[in-house]
Protein backbone atom coordinates (compact mmCIF):
# COMPACT_ATOMS: atom_id res chain seq x y z
CA UNK A 1 0.00 0.00 0.00
CA UNK A 2 1.36 3.37 -1.05
CA UNK A 3 0.01 6.84 -0.87
CA UNK A 4 0.52 10.23 -2.45
CA UNK A 5 -0.47 13.62 -1.14
CA UNK A 6 -2.91 15.53 -3.26
CA UNK A 7 -0.52 18.39 -3.78
CA UNK A 8 1.97 16.01 -5.36
CA UNK A 9 -0.60 14.59 -7.72
CA UNK A 10 -0.14 17.29 -10.34
CA UNK A 11 3.57 16.53 -10.49
CA UNK A 12 2.87 12.83 -10.73
CA UNK A 13 0.47 13.33 -13.61
CA UNK A 14 2.95 15.54 -15.38
CA UNK A 15 5.57 12.88 -14.86
CA UNK A 16 3.37 10.16 -16.30
CA UNK A 17 2.21 12.40 -19.11
CA UNK A 18 5.78 13.16 -20.12
CA UNK A 19 6.63 9.52 -20.54
CA UNK A 20 3.50 8.10 -22.05
CA UNK A 21 0.01 8.99 -23.02
CA UNK A 22 -2.21 9.65 -20.05
CA UNK A 23 -6.01 9.67 -20.21
CA UNK A 24 -7.72 11.30 -17.27
CA UNK A 25 -11.01 12.99 -16.42
CA UNK A 26 -10.67 16.59 -17.50
CA UNK A 27 -13.12 19.45 -17.65
CA UNK A 28 -13.98 21.12 -20.95
CA UNK A 29 -16.70 23.79 -20.99
CA UNK A 30 -18.17 22.57 -17.74
CA UNK A 31 -18.28 18.87 -18.53
CA UNK A 32 -15.91 16.16 -17.42
CA UNK A 33 -14.82 13.47 -19.83
CA UNK A 34 -11.69 11.43 -20.36
CA UNK A 35 -9.18 13.57 -22.19
CA UNK A 36 -5.64 13.07 -23.26
CA UNK A 37 -3.60 14.84 -20.64
CA UNK A 38 -1.46 17.85 -21.39
CA UNK A 39 -0.23 20.70 -19.27
CA UNK A 40 -3.40 22.69 -19.83
CA UNK A 41 -5.75 19.89 -18.87
CA UNK A 42 -8.21 20.90 -16.18
CA UNK A 43 -7.96 17.59 -14.27
CA UNK A 44 -11.16 16.72 -12.45
CA UNK A 45 -11.03 13.67 -10.19
CA UNK A 46 -13.86 14.92 -7.99
CA UNK A 47 -16.74 14.52 -10.40
CA UNK A 48 -18.11 11.07 -9.72
CA UNK A 49 -19.07 10.20 -13.28
CA UNK A 50 -17.56 11.38 -16.50
CA UNK A 51 -20.25 12.00 -19.12
CA UNK A 52 -18.89 9.38 -21.45
CA UNK A 53 -17.49 6.32 -19.76
CA UNK A 54 -13.89 5.18 -19.81
CA UNK A 55 -14.67 2.71 -22.59
CA UNK A 56 -13.85 5.26 -25.25
CA UNK A 57 -10.17 5.02 -24.42
CA UNK A 58 -10.17 1.40 -25.59
CA UNK A 59 -13.08 1.61 -27.98
CA UNK A 60 -13.11 5.14 -29.38
CA UNK A 61 -16.32 6.64 -30.67
CA UNK A 62 -14.79 6.58 -34.14
CA UNK A 63 -11.68 5.01 -35.50
CA UNK A 64 -10.30 4.49 -38.96
CA UNK A 65 -9.74 0.90 -39.94
CA UNK A 66 -8.05 1.31 -43.27
CA UNK A 67 -7.66 3.73 -46.12
CA UNK A 68 -7.96 3.16 -49.85
CA UNK A 69 -6.27 5.54 -52.22
CA UNK A 70 -6.01 5.66 -55.97
CA UNK A 71 -2.70 6.27 -57.56
CA UNK A 72 -2.49 6.43 -61.33
CA UNK A 73 -5.78 4.65 -61.60
CA UNK A 74 -4.75 1.82 -59.25
CA UNK A 75 -6.06 1.24 -55.75
CA UNK A 76 -3.76 1.06 -52.76
CA UNK A 77 -4.98 -0.10 -49.36
CA UNK A 78 -3.24 0.89 -46.19
CA UNK A 79 -4.19 -0.65 -42.88
CA UNK A 80 -4.51 1.64 -39.90
CA UNK A 81 -1.74 0.99 -37.38
CA UNK A 82 -2.60 -0.70 -34.12
CA UNK A 83 -1.97 1.05 -30.82
CA UNK A 84 1.76 0.74 -30.20
CA UNK A 85 2.23 3.38 -27.56
CA UNK A 86 1.98 2.56 -23.84
CA UNK A 87 -0.58 4.62 -21.99
CA UNK A 88 -2.15 5.10 -18.61
CA UNK A 89 -5.88 5.46 -18.00
CA UNK A 90 -6.34 7.25 -14.72
CA UNK A 91 -9.26 7.58 -12.35
CA UNK A 92 -11.58 4.81 -13.56
CA UNK A 93 -14.47 4.00 -11.23
CA UNK A 94 -15.51 0.46 -10.37
CA UNK A 95 -18.49 0.52 -12.69
CA UNK A 96 -16.46 1.64 -15.69
CA UNK A 97 -13.81 -0.95 -14.85
CA UNK A 98 -16.48 -3.60 -14.88
CA UNK A 99 -17.70 -2.13 -18.16
CA UNK A 100 -14.28 -2.76 -19.64
CA UNK A 101 -14.53 -6.37 -18.50
CA UNK A 102 -17.84 -6.61 -20.33
CA UNK A 103 -16.23 -5.23 -23.46
CA UNK A 104 -13.39 -7.71 -23.06
CA UNK A 105 -15.96 -10.48 -23.33
CA UNK A 106 -17.07 -9.12 -26.64
CA UNK A 107 -13.90 -7.90 -28.25
CA UNK A 108 -11.36 -10.35 -26.91
CA UNK A 109 -13.29 -13.50 -27.73
CA UNK A 110 -12.93 -14.97 -31.18
CA UNK A 111 -12.88 -13.27 -33.57
CA UNK A 112 -10.62 -10.99 -31.59
CA UNK A 113 -10.87 -7.29 -32.30
CA UNK A 114 -7.26 -6.42 -32.93
CA UNK A 115 -7.70 -2.70 -32.47
CA UNK A 116 -9.29 -3.19 -29.07
CA UNK A 117 -6.83 -5.85 -28.03
CA UNK A 118 -3.82 -3.71 -28.84
CA UNK A 119 -5.18 -0.90 -26.72
CA UNK A 120 -5.96 -3.21 -23.82
CA UNK A 121 -2.44 -4.56 -23.93
CA UNK A 122 -0.78 -1.17 -24.03
CA UNK A 123 -2.97 0.42 -21.40
CA UNK A 124 -2.47 0.48 -17.64
CA UNK A 125 -5.64 1.22 -15.73
CA UNK A 126 -5.58 3.18 -12.52
CA UNK A 127 -8.97 2.87 -10.83
CA UNK A 128 -10.36 4.90 -8.03
CA UNK A 129 -12.82 4.04 -5.28
CA UNK A 130 -15.98 6.16 -5.22
CA UNK A 131 -15.89 8.72 -2.46
CA UNK A 132 -19.45 9.86 -2.53
CA UNK A 133 -21.76 7.60 -4.57
CA UNK A 134 -24.88 9.26 -5.93
CA UNK A 135 -28.54 8.46 -5.97
CA UNK A 136 -28.47 7.14 -9.52
CA UNK A 137 -25.77 4.58 -8.70
CA UNK A 138 -26.75 0.93 -8.46
CA UNK A 139 -23.53 -0.95 -9.16
CA UNK A 140 -23.96 -3.07 -6.08
CA UNK A 141 -27.03 -4.61 -7.69
CA UNK A 142 -24.63 -6.17 -10.20
CA UNK A 143 -22.24 -7.29 -7.50
CA UNK A 144 -19.79 -4.46 -8.02
CA UNK A 145 -18.01 -3.06 -5.00
CA UNK A 146 -17.29 0.58 -5.69
CA UNK A 147 -15.17 0.71 -2.54
CA UNK A 148 -12.68 -1.63 -4.07
CA UNK A 149 -12.44 -1.35 -7.81
CA UNK A 150 -10.10 -3.59 -9.73
CA UNK A 151 -7.71 -2.53 -12.45
CA UNK A 152 -3.92 -2.42 -12.43
CA UNK A 153 -3.70 0.12 -9.64
CA UNK A 154 -6.44 1.18 -7.23
CA UNK A 155 -6.65 4.57 -5.54
CA UNK A 156 -8.62 5.67 -2.52
CA UNK A 157 -9.37 9.29 -1.90
CA UNK A 158 -8.91 10.24 1.74
CA UNK A 159 -8.45 13.74 3.10
CA UNK A 160 -5.30 15.20 1.61
CA UNK A 161 -4.10 11.93 0.24
CA UNK A 162 -4.72 9.22 -2.26
CA UNK A 163 -3.94 5.71 -1.17
CA UNK A 164 -2.35 3.64 -3.92
CA UNK A 165 -2.34 -0.08 -4.35
CA UNK A 166 -0.93 -2.05 -7.25
CA UNK A 167 -3.01 -5.09 -8.24
CA UNK A 168 -1.21 -6.48 -11.25
CA UNK A 169 2.19 -6.65 -12.88
CA UNK A 170 1.37 -3.64 -14.98
CA UNK A 171 0.31 -1.91 -11.79
CA UNK A 172 3.55 -2.83 -10.08
CA UNK A 173 5.49 -1.50 -13.02
CA UNK A 174 3.64 1.80 -12.90
CA UNK A 175 4.12 1.98 -9.12
CA UNK A 176 7.82 1.33 -9.59
CA UNK A 177 8.04 4.05 -12.23
CA UNK A 178 6.25 6.52 -10.00
CA UNK A 179 7.97 5.45 -6.81
CA UNK A 180 9.63 8.80 -6.23
CA UNK A 181 6.19 10.37 -5.74
CA UNK A 182 4.84 7.63 -3.47
CA UNK A 183 5.12 7.02 0.21
CA UNK A 184 4.05 4.00 2.18
CA UNK A 185 0.44 3.90 3.30
CA UNK A 186 -1.34 1.74 5.81
CA UNK A 187 -3.97 -0.88 4.99
CA UNK A 188 -6.02 -0.05 8.07
CA UNK A 189 -6.94 3.44 6.90
CA UNK A 190 -7.94 2.04 3.53
CA UNK A 191 -10.11 -0.57 5.18
CA UNK A 192 -11.83 2.20 7.10
CA UNK A 193 -12.39 4.14 3.90
CA UNK A 194 -13.88 1.08 2.23
CA UNK A 195 -16.24 0.53 5.11
CA UNK A 196 -17.34 4.12 5.06
CA UNK A 197 -18.11 3.87 1.35
CA UNK A 198 -19.99 0.63 1.77
CA UNK A 199 -22.10 2.21 4.50
CA UNK A 200 -23.06 5.04 2.15
CA UNK A 201 -23.84 2.60 -0.64
CA UNK A 202 -26.38 0.87 1.57
CA UNK A 203 -28.32 4.13 1.83
CA UNK A 204 -28.67 4.65 -1.92
CA UNK A 205 -32.25 4.58 -3.21
CA UNK A 206 -31.67 1.88 -5.83
CA UNK A 207 -29.94 -0.58 -3.53
CA UNK A 208 -33.04 -2.73 -3.19
CA UNK A 209 -33.44 -3.20 -6.89
CA UNK A 210 -33.98 -6.86 -7.51
CA UNK A 211 -32.67 -8.74 -10.51
CA UNK A 212 -34.90 -11.64 -9.75
CA UNK A 213 -36.16 -13.17 -12.94
CA UNK A 214 -33.37 -11.61 -15.04
CA UNK A 215 -31.22 -14.67 -15.15
CA UNK A 216 -31.00 -15.24 -18.84
CA UNK A 217 -34.03 -17.50 -18.88
CA UNK A 218 -37.69 -16.78 -19.66
CA UNK A 219 -36.48 -15.01 -22.76
CA UNK A 220 -39.71 -15.30 -24.67
CA UNK A 221 -41.85 -14.36 -21.72
CA UNK A 222 -39.87 -11.18 -21.25
CA UNK A 223 -39.78 -10.50 -24.96
CA UNK A 224 -43.52 -10.81 -25.36
CA UNK A 225 -44.45 -8.98 -22.21
CA UNK A 226 -47.03 -6.18 -22.64
CA UNK A 227 -44.96 -4.09 -20.21
CA UNK A 228 -42.81 -2.84 -23.08
CA UNK A 229 -45.80 -1.25 -24.77
CA UNK A 230 -46.01 1.47 -22.16
CA UNK A 231 -42.35 1.60 -21.20
CA UNK A 232 -41.05 2.60 -24.60
CA UNK A 233 -43.47 5.47 -25.12
CA UNK A 234 -41.42 8.33 -23.70
CA UNK A 235 -38.34 7.15 -25.62
CA UNK A 236 -37.21 9.75 -28.14
CA UNK A 237 -34.99 7.33 -30.02
CA UNK A 238 -31.84 9.29 -29.38
CA UNK A 239 -28.61 7.57 -28.61
CA UNK A 240 -27.77 9.26 -25.33
CA UNK A 241 -28.12 6.14 -23.17
CA UNK A 242 -26.03 4.16 -25.62
CA UNK A 243 -23.26 6.67 -25.96
CA UNK A 244 -22.83 7.30 -22.24
CA UNK A 245 -23.07 3.59 -21.44
CA UNK A 246 -19.85 1.84 -20.37
CA UNK A 247 -20.91 -1.46 -21.91
CA UNK A 248 -22.68 -0.66 -25.16
CA UNK A 249 -20.42 -2.03 -27.82
CA UNK A 250 -22.32 -1.83 -31.09
CA UNK A 251 -20.70 -0.05 -33.94
CA UNK A 252 -21.35 0.79 -37.55
CA UNK A 253 -18.80 0.65 -40.31
CA UNK A 254 -18.84 3.47 -42.79
CA UNK A 255 -16.80 4.90 -45.60
CA UNK A 256 -15.67 8.48 -45.82
CA UNK A 257 -14.63 9.95 -49.12
CA UNK A 258 -11.72 12.26 -48.47
CA UNK A 259 -11.46 13.20 -52.11
CA UNK A 260 -8.08 11.54 -52.25
CA UNK A 261 -9.37 8.18 -51.25
CA UNK A 262 -11.77 6.44 -48.97
CA UNK A 263 -11.36 5.94 -45.27
CA UNK A 264 -13.20 3.02 -43.82
CA UNK A 265 -13.99 3.75 -40.23
CA UNK A 266 -16.17 2.41 -37.50
CA UNK A 267 -18.20 4.46 -35.11
CA UNK A 268 -20.48 3.80 -32.20
CA UNK A 269 -23.98 2.98 -33.21
CA UNK A 270 -27.11 2.85 -31.14
CA UNK A 271 -29.83 0.23 -31.22
CA UNK A 272 -32.19 3.14 -30.55
CA UNK A 273 -31.59 4.52 -34.05
CA UNK A 274 -33.96 3.73 -36.85
CA UNK A 275 -31.15 2.77 -39.20
CA UNK A 276 -29.59 0.34 -36.75
CA UNK A 277 -29.61 -3.08 -38.40
CA UNK A 278 -30.80 -1.47 -41.61
CA UNK A 279 -30.06 -3.82 -44.43
CA UNK A 280 -30.65 -3.83 -48.13
CA UNK A 281 -34.14 -5.29 -47.74
CA UNK A 282 -35.07 -2.90 -44.94
CA UNK A 283 -34.98 -3.16 -41.19
CA UNK A 284 -35.98 -6.10 -39.09
CA UNK A 285 -36.88 -3.80 -36.21
CA UNK A 286 -39.49 -1.47 -37.55
CA UNK A 287 -40.78 0.17 -34.40
CA UNK A 288 -39.31 2.04 -31.50
CA UNK A 289 -40.87 -0.50 -29.17
CA UNK A 290 -38.73 -3.19 -30.77
CA UNK A 291 -35.61 -1.08 -30.59
CA UNK A 292 -36.22 -0.09 -27.00
CA UNK A 293 -36.87 -3.67 -25.99
CA UNK A 294 -33.73 -4.81 -27.76
CA UNK A 295 -31.53 -2.57 -25.68
CA UNK A 296 -32.75 -3.90 -22.36
CA UNK A 297 -33.22 -7.48 -23.45
CA UNK A 298 -29.63 -7.42 -24.61
CA UNK A 299 -28.27 -6.03 -21.37
CA UNK A 300 -30.36 -8.13 -19.02
CA UNK A 301 -31.26 -11.29 -20.90
CA UNK A 302 -29.26 -12.07 -24.03
CA UNK A 303 -25.86 -11.02 -22.76
CA UNK A 304 -26.01 -12.93 -19.47
CA UNK A 305 -27.40 -15.93 -21.34
CA UNK A 306 -24.33 -15.97 -23.55
CA UNK A 307 -21.74 -14.91 -20.99
CA UNK A 308 -22.15 -17.09 -17.93
CA UNK A 309 -24.62 -14.78 -16.27
CA UNK A 310 -22.60 -11.60 -16.69
CA UNK A 311 -24.98 -8.68 -17.20
CA UNK A 312 -24.02 -6.02 -19.66
CA UNK A 313 -25.18 -3.35 -17.27
CA UNK A 314 -22.86 -2.19 -14.53
CA UNK A 315 -25.25 0.11 -12.67
CA UNK A 316 -23.30 3.29 -13.30
CA UNK A 317 -26.58 5.20 -13.59
CA UNK A 318 -25.44 7.39 -16.47
CA UNK A 319 -28.58 6.61 -18.44
CA UNK A 320 -30.60 7.45 -15.35
CA UNK A 321 -28.88 10.82 -15.20
CA UNK A 322 -28.89 11.63 -18.88
CA UNK A 323 -32.01 10.24 -20.55
CA UNK A 324 -33.90 13.26 -21.95
CA UNK A 325 -37.20 11.49 -21.31
CA UNK A 326 -36.25 10.04 -17.94
CA UNK A 327 -36.76 6.49 -19.00
CA UNK A 328 -34.00 4.06 -18.12
CA UNK A 329 -32.97 0.56 -17.22
CA UNK A 330 -33.95 0.96 -13.57
CA UNK A 331 -37.50 1.85 -14.56
CA UNK A 332 -37.54 -1.19 -16.83
CA UNK A 333 -36.42 -3.52 -14.05
CA UNK A 334 -38.92 -1.98 -11.65
CA UNK A 335 -41.76 -2.22 -14.13
CA UNK A 336 -41.21 -5.94 -14.52
CA UNK A 337 -40.86 -6.28 -10.77
CA UNK A 338 -44.21 -4.58 -10.34
CA UNK A 339 -45.88 -6.83 -12.87
CA UNK A 340 -44.40 -9.71 -10.95
CA UNK A 341 -42.62 -11.11 -13.95
Amino acid at each position, binding site marked *: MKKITKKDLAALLRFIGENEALYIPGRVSGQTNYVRYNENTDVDLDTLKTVKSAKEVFFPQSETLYTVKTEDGKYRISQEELQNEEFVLFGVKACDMKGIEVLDKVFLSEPVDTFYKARREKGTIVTMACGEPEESCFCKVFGIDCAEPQGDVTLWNFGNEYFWKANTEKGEALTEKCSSFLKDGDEATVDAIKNAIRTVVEKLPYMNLSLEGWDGTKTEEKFNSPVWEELYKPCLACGTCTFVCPTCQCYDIKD*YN*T*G*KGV*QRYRCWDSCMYSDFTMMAHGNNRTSQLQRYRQRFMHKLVYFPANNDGMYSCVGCGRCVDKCPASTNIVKVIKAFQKEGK
Partner: protein
Amino acid sequence: MSMNTEFKPKIVAFCCNWCSYAGADLAGSSRLAYPADVKIIRVPCSCRVNPMFILRAFEKGADGVIICGCHPGDCHYSTGNYYARRRMTLLFSMLDYMGIERGRTRVEWVSAAEGVKFSNTMNEFVDAVRTLGPNKRLGDLRCKD
Protein backbone atom coordinates in the same frame (compact mmCIF):
# COMPACT_ATOMS: atom_id res chain seq x y z
CA MET B 1 3.37 38.39 -49.64
CA SER B 2 5.28 35.41 -50.99
CA MET B 3 2.84 33.23 -49.09
CA ASN B 4 -0.04 34.85 -50.87
CA THR B 5 1.34 34.33 -54.32
CA GLU B 6 1.97 30.66 -53.64
CA PHE B 7 -1.38 29.93 -52.05
CA LYS B 8 -3.82 28.68 -54.66
CA PRO B 9 -7.23 28.79 -53.05
CA LYS B 10 -9.96 26.41 -54.04
CA ILE B 11 -13.00 28.44 -54.92
CA VAL B 12 -16.39 26.97 -55.71
CA ALA B 13 -18.80 29.24 -57.56
CA PHE B 14 -22.43 28.24 -57.80
CA CYS B 15 -23.92 30.06 -60.78
CA CYS B 16 -27.52 30.11 -61.83
CA ASN B 17 -28.05 28.89 -65.34
CA TRP B 18 -29.95 31.90 -66.63
CA CYS B 19 -28.00 34.92 -65.52
CA SER B 20 -24.72 34.26 -63.81
CA TYR B 21 -23.63 31.22 -65.76
CA ALA B 22 -24.41 33.18 -68.90
CA GLY B 23 -22.53 36.13 -67.38
CA ALA B 24 -19.55 33.82 -66.89
CA ASP B 25 -19.86 32.72 -70.50
CA LEU B 26 -19.90 36.35 -71.56
CA ALA B 27 -16.82 37.03 -69.46
CA GLY B 28 -15.26 34.11 -71.32
CA SER B 29 -16.23 35.19 -74.79
CA SER B 30 -15.08 38.72 -73.91
CA ARG B 31 -11.77 37.22 -72.71
CA LEU B 32 -12.11 38.89 -69.32
CA ALA B 33 -9.67 36.94 -67.22
CA TYR B 34 -10.14 35.82 -63.64
CA PRO B 35 -8.10 33.31 -61.66
CA ALA B 36 -8.25 29.64 -62.58
CA ASP B 37 -8.88 28.91 -58.90
CA VAL B 38 -12.55 29.53 -59.54
CA LYS B 39 -14.53 26.48 -60.63
CA ILE B 40 -18.14 26.97 -61.57
CA ILE B 41 -21.01 24.63 -60.77
CA ARG B 42 -24.11 25.25 -62.82
CA VAL B 43 -27.38 25.21 -60.95
CA PRO B 44 -30.78 26.15 -62.35
CA CYS B 45 -31.24 28.97 -59.86
CA SER B 46 -29.51 30.42 -56.84
CA CYS B 47 -32.40 29.01 -54.82
CA ARG B 48 -31.16 25.53 -55.69
CA VAL B 49 -28.07 26.10 -53.56
CA ASN B 50 -28.53 24.17 -50.38
CA PRO B 51 -26.49 25.36 -47.39
CA MET B 52 -25.32 21.76 -47.21
CA PHE B 53 -23.60 22.23 -50.59
CA ILE B 54 -21.69 25.18 -49.23
CA LEU B 55 -20.67 23.42 -46.05
CA ARG B 56 -19.77 20.37 -48.08
CA ALA B 57 -17.43 22.45 -50.22
CA PHE B 58 -15.69 23.75 -47.12
CA GLU B 59 -15.62 20.28 -45.64
CA LYS B 60 -13.83 18.93 -48.66
CA GLY B 61 -11.28 21.69 -48.68
CA ALA B 62 -12.71 24.73 -50.44
CA ASP B 63 -11.24 28.01 -49.28
CA GLY B 64 -14.11 30.11 -50.49
CA VAL B 65 -17.62 29.66 -51.83
CA ILE B 66 -19.49 32.21 -53.90
CA ILE B 67 -23.07 32.05 -55.06
CA CYS B 68 -24.12 34.03 -58.10
CA GLY B 69 -27.66 34.55 -59.25
CA CYS B 70 -29.87 36.87 -61.22
CA HIS B 71 -30.37 40.34 -59.83
CA PRO B 72 -33.29 40.58 -57.43
CA GLY B 73 -36.35 41.08 -59.60
CA ASP B 74 -34.79 39.39 -62.60
CA CYS B 75 -34.93 35.79 -61.47
CA HIS B 76 -35.82 33.49 -64.32
CA TYR B 77 -38.17 31.81 -61.89
CA SER B 78 -39.36 35.19 -60.56
CA THR B 79 -38.65 34.64 -56.91
CA GLY B 80 -35.86 32.11 -56.49
CA ASN B 81 -33.12 34.56 -55.69
CA TYR B 82 -35.23 36.23 -53.01
CA TYR B 83 -35.35 32.96 -51.11
CA ALA B 84 -31.68 32.37 -51.77
CA ARG B 85 -30.95 35.84 -50.42
CA ARG B 86 -32.65 35.13 -47.10
CA ARG B 87 -31.11 31.71 -46.77
CA MET B 88 -27.62 32.91 -47.48
CA THR B 89 -27.99 35.96 -45.28
CA LEU B 90 -28.78 33.73 -42.33
CA LEU B 91 -26.22 31.09 -43.15
CA PHE B 92 -23.41 33.59 -43.59
CA SER B 93 -24.39 35.33 -40.40
CA MET B 94 -24.20 32.00 -38.58
CA LEU B 95 -20.79 31.22 -40.03
CA ASP B 96 -19.60 34.62 -38.93
CA TYR B 97 -21.06 33.99 -35.49
CA MET B 98 -19.03 30.80 -35.26
CA GLY B 99 -15.84 32.59 -36.12
CA ILE B 100 -15.59 31.52 -39.74
CA GLU B 101 -14.06 34.35 -41.73
CA ARG B 102 -16.72 36.42 -43.45
CA GLY B 103 -14.62 36.81 -46.59
CA ARG B 104 -14.88 33.16 -47.47
CA THR B 105 -18.51 33.35 -48.45
CA ARG B 106 -20.21 35.72 -50.79
CA VAL B 107 -23.33 36.22 -52.82
CA GLU B 108 -23.24 38.35 -55.94
CA TRP B 109 -25.98 39.09 -58.42
CA VAL B 110 -24.61 38.92 -61.95
CA SER B 111 -26.79 39.21 -65.02
CA ALA B 112 -26.22 37.54 -68.36
CA ALA B 113 -25.04 40.89 -69.67
CA GLU B 114 -22.51 41.49 -66.92
CA GLY B 115 -19.43 39.67 -68.11
CA VAL B 116 -17.32 42.47 -66.73
CA LYS B 117 -18.97 42.27 -63.36
CA PHE B 118 -18.53 38.53 -63.28
CA SER B 119 -14.85 38.79 -63.97
CA ASN B 120 -14.35 41.64 -61.51
CA THR B 121 -16.29 39.83 -58.83
CA MET B 122 -14.22 36.70 -59.20
CA ASN B 123 -10.99 38.66 -59.16
CA GLU B 124 -12.01 40.47 -56.00
CA PHE B 125 -13.27 37.35 -54.30
CA VAL B 126 -10.16 35.33 -55.05
CA ASP B 127 -8.04 38.21 -53.79
CA ALA B 128 -10.03 38.36 -50.58
CA VAL B 129 -9.71 34.62 -50.02
CA ARG B 130 -6.01 34.73 -50.80
CA THR B 131 -5.58 37.38 -48.15
CA LEU B 132 -7.37 35.18 -45.64
CA GLY B 133 -5.17 32.23 -46.50
CA PRO B 134 -6.13 28.58 -46.38
CA ASN B 135 -9.43 27.63 -44.75
CA LYS B 136 -8.57 26.08 -41.43
CA ARG B 137 -11.74 26.61 -39.50
CA LEU B 138 -14.35 24.84 -41.51
CA GLY B 139 -12.96 21.75 -43.11
CA ASP B 140 -12.64 18.10 -42.42
CA LEU B 141 -9.11 17.23 -41.43
CA ARG B 142 -9.46 13.90 -43.16
CA CYS B 143 -9.55 15.71 -46.50
CA LYS B 144 -6.47 17.77 -45.83
CA ASP B 145 -3.69 15.25 -46.24
